[in-house]
Every structure is written in C-alpha cells, then in structure tokens.
C-alpha cells in the first residue's frame, strides 16, 4: 500500500451539523475555511503503538495474538493490560476469531523477540496484565520490530505503522489511532493560523475500540491517561474569555477536556486519567464542537455524540450519512457536530 492508493484523504467528505441542527455536505479539504478568528482547535498528538503481537502461549504451544490495550503505568513499556485472541488474522472479524488457549497467571508468552509473563487475569479470562522481560530499550525495539498496528477487518492490506500515525503524531502512547486527526494536515493548520484560528494539542491515550467480545466491549473505553500542557490550558482560557469556541478533533479530545475541567469550570493542566463514558447526560463544559469519524448507533463513540446533539438530529444524521454513502471507518469521512443548546427544541432545516 502506498500513500497514493485508493480514495485518499483529499477526496474525503465532511458532513456538518450546526448548533441549530442544520445539515450540509462539504469536501473535507474545506476544513481550511471553517471556524472563525478567535476559535481554538484542540487535537490529540498521540502516535500509535504497534500494539498487536503474535506468538505462542508457551504452556499449550498454541498460537496467540495479544493486543496491548492499556498502560499499567503510562510510558513504561514493561507492563501492559492486554487482550488475548486466538488464531486467525485481521481479515476475520474479531467476533468470529477462535478463543485463545486457557491462560493462567505465571504463563509465558513468546512474542517474536519478546517474552511476556502473565502477571494476572483482570476479571476476564482474556484480559491479561502482562510484564515484558527486559529493559525499556529492548522492549521498545521488540515492539517496533515485531509489533503491528491493530488491524481492521475493513482494510484488506496489512496496515503499516506509518499509516496509523496522524500528521501531528508526536508521542507514541496510543493503542489505536486517534483517527479524527487523519483529517488534519500541515496546510490546514497553516491556513487556520493565517485566519487567526488557534490550534493546540494534548496527548490522550486512545485505547482499543473493540475486543471481539460483546460483554468485554461493554467495559470499553478503558481508563485512558492524558497529558494536557499548560500552553493548551492557557489557550483554552483565553478562547473562552474572549467568546471563542473550542473545537475538539476527535472523541479522545472530548474525553480529555471533560476530565481537566472541574465542577466550577476551572481548567487544570497536567497528567490525569479519563474514566467512564461521555453520554447524553454528560455536560460539556468546554467543548463547543467535535470533528469525528462516521460512527454507528450503539458504538461508544456514537454515544458520546449524544452529548452534542439531540437523538432526533443524530438519527436524521445517520440516515443522511447512509444515503450519501459516507465511509464509516478509521480512514473514512468526517462529521463536524456543533453542540446544540440544551433544553431547546431542535427544528430541522434542510
């Protein structure tokens, strides 16, 4: 696969719902002309780890895939929470994959050049606390050489690491790509800068989107650590004080910004952990709009959108997106939803 294969980001579409529930279609390249001077765009600069590792469950001799799914201590690559999967590959939908062998604490996994010890099972036979044998350098070298990005059944060609890093990817901490950021490129950021639209980043550990087990999926998203720099908090405060809007690039930014603001509206910089789901009743204290992918009702990402817009509007959106063949996956089209005022009836305009 090369960067030029298939419908690239240049041909992506953008669907917009404004604060009044009005809908329109644009080419995603028109992002450069959206928003107003004084607004602030906030994006997630996490780079994606090659979090899928194949190998052997030594005790049974059976093939296994482990997907690193969460840090035990963020940026310490010696220990992870991981999901075990059985034989098969990404072309087989995760839910159809055979079960992995029965795993017990103390078991060893041979994963290419890496050896991991199962320290514990975390409330489910497929959720493992793993410790890699070796030091940080050797483990990062092993992950880089043997790990693959978590693959998607809808992408036929194996995904290489470059494919899951956004243009702004900086800090390799995410387990799946913060995919809304694929809509950004440096030209767009330069155009926003020229129009005096602010741009800031935070780093949020985007976790895995699916485990292949419906019961386990209910536990998603796992707790996700984030880091919000002082300069980003300063930009948010300045934007808010001057009446500008905060536009979040992706659900991870909404989660992080939902966690850095306290009940009194004060915003705190630094490291933290985003817990729980954002849903219909969650107040959005900072974020005025979200740019995200095309999500389906029932997905946790779709649930998060209910904090932005009325169900009737979201249902209408799903129909329109289907009618116009918007592509609903990590490398697909984009949706921009402005937060609708709460408690007001939403009238539809077309």
């Amino acid at each position, binding site marked *: 696969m090369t960067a030029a294969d298939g419908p690239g980001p240049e041909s992506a579409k953008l669907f917009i719902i404004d604060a009044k529930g009005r809908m329109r279609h644009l080419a995603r390249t028109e992002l450069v002309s959206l928003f107003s001077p004084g607004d602030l765009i906030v994006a997630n600069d996490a*780079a994606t780890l090659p979090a899928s590792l194949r190998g052997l469950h030594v005790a049974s001799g059976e093939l296994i895939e482990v997907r690193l799914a969460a840090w035990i201590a963020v940026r310490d690559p010696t220990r992870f929470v991981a999901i075990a999967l059985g034989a098969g590959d990404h072309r087989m939908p995760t839910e159809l994959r055979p079960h992995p062998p029965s795993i017990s604490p103390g078991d060893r996994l041979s994963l290419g050049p890496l050896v991991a010890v199962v320290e514990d099972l975390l409330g489910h036979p497929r959720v493992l606390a793993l410790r890699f044998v070796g030091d940080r350098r050797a483990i990062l*070298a092993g992950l*880089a050489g043997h790990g693959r990005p978590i693959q998607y059944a809808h992408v036929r060609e194996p995904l290489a690491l470059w494919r899951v*890093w*956004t243009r*702004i*990817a*900086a800090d390799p901490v995410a387990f799946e790509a913060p995919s809304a950021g694929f809509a950004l490129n440096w030209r767009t950021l330069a155009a926003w800068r020229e129009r005096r639209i602010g741009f800031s980043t935070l780093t949020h550990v985007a976790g895995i989107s699916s485990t292949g087990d419906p019961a386990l999926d209910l536990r998603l998203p796992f707790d996700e650590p984030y880091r919000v720099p002082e*300069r980003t908090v300063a930009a948010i405060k300045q934007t808010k004080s001057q009446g500008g809007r905060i536009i979040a690039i992706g659900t991870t930014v909404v989660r992080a910004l939902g966690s850095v603001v306290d009940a009194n509206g004060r915003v705190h910089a630094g490291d933290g952990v985003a817990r729980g789901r954002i849903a219909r009743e969650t107040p959005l204290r900072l974020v005025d709009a979200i740019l995200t992918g095309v999500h389906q009702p029932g997905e946790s990402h779709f649930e998060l959108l209910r904090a932005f817009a009325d169900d009737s509007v979201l249902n209408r959106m799903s129909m329109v997106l289907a009618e116009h063949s918007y592509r609903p996956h990590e490398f697909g089209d984009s949706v921009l939803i402005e937060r609708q005022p709460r408690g007001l009836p939403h009238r539809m305009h077309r």
Partner: protein
Amino acid sequence: MLAGTDLKDLRVAVTGGTLGLGLALVRMLTAQGAHVAFVARTPEAVERIANETGAFGIVGDVARKDDIYRIALQITGNLDGLDVLINNASSLGPPMLALLADTECEHLEYALGVNVLGSFRLTKALFGALVASAHGGRGAVVINISSDAAINAYPSWGAYGASKAALRHLTAIWDQEAKADRVRFLSVDPGDMDTPLHAQAIPDADPATLRRPEDSAVSIVETLLAALPSEATHLVGAHR
C-alpha cells in the same frame, strides 16, 4: 568553548551514530549530559557504542522505508520526545568515486535513498514530535549534514554531490515552511574529515590534512545550541 557545557535535558537523535562524525557527536553529546538516541545498521556496533556511551542504540537502516517509523517510535519512546534530530547517515553511492557516466543507476539511487529520502522520511515521521517540543518552548532543530560537494561540482563525486545538493535545498525549503512552528532546519558542512566515508572516497588521503570528526562535532553542537530559542536555555548550562 564547549567544554563544561551541560546539555542536561536536551533530547537528541543522531543517525549513523557508530562511525565517523556520528560517533563523535554521540560521544560528545552524551558526555555533556544530553539524552541521546542513535541509529545504525549493524547490531554489534550499536550495542558496543550504546554500552560505551550510555546512549539508546537503535538498529535500523534509514534507507529502508519500512524501518523509518520503527526508528521514530524508538527515538521518541526512549527519549520521551525529541528536541534535535541530526541526519548524519550518508552514503557515497558507488563503492568508490566514479564519473557520472560510469555510475550505476542503482548507486545513484542508493545515495539518494540514504542522503535525501532517508533524511526526509525520518524527519517527516518525527516532525510532530519536533513541533510539540518547539511549541512547548524547548525549541526544535533539524541538522542535516551537508558537504561542500553540495555546492561545488567536483568530478567523480556525482552521486554524493547531487544527493547532498538535493538535501541542502530540501533543508532550506523546510526551514521556510516550518518557521511558523518554530522548528529550525540547518545544513552544516563539517569539512573534509578523517572518517570511513572519506577513506572510501580517497583511500590514500593523508589523515594529517583532514579535520578530526571530534572537532567538527564541536562546531555542530555549537551551531545547534545557537539555533535553539533563548527560552530553551534552561536545558543547557550557562556556559554559552
């Protein structure tokens, strides 16, 4: 002048870090307290220099497209970010100096693959990390090792000279484009040095007429310190 400078929290990556100028840079930067990751192709040499200097050694080949993001991941993963990238790994192209009409296409391709594409790809993969460092007030500098062969048309240095000329122009354009994000791009000509690459080009050169790579490394570190923004000087001891 540089003696005693403490580069305590500076995070630097050097390609081609086990030989010649790259090795001199790794030794000098680690001795002055910088956090250093270096890249080279030979596992044994990487391990030896890592053990000697305490720098993070990364086995990889910048000429191989598939290695680039693996290298980038290990650089930012080991250093927790990146302030300075020194694209030093270079290839002469042909095994010995050759007139262009005698140069195999594959040898020109290889020189371009290491000297231009390798530097371009690695910089692109690390650009987000460099911008994050620049916006965080630490500064960000990319130093691309150049040559007077990038400017002067030396017969028999065609593959090398053309590739270094391309790298020099790429560096100048990128410096313009990245100004607004405060990432600096610099070409540095270290001079004719007593290195394995020079010995490959001119085997019977008198080493006494050549610059020591250690001396060139001093100038390069001075150049990179001068390119860091003044607010980043807390990373560097006050000996400037």
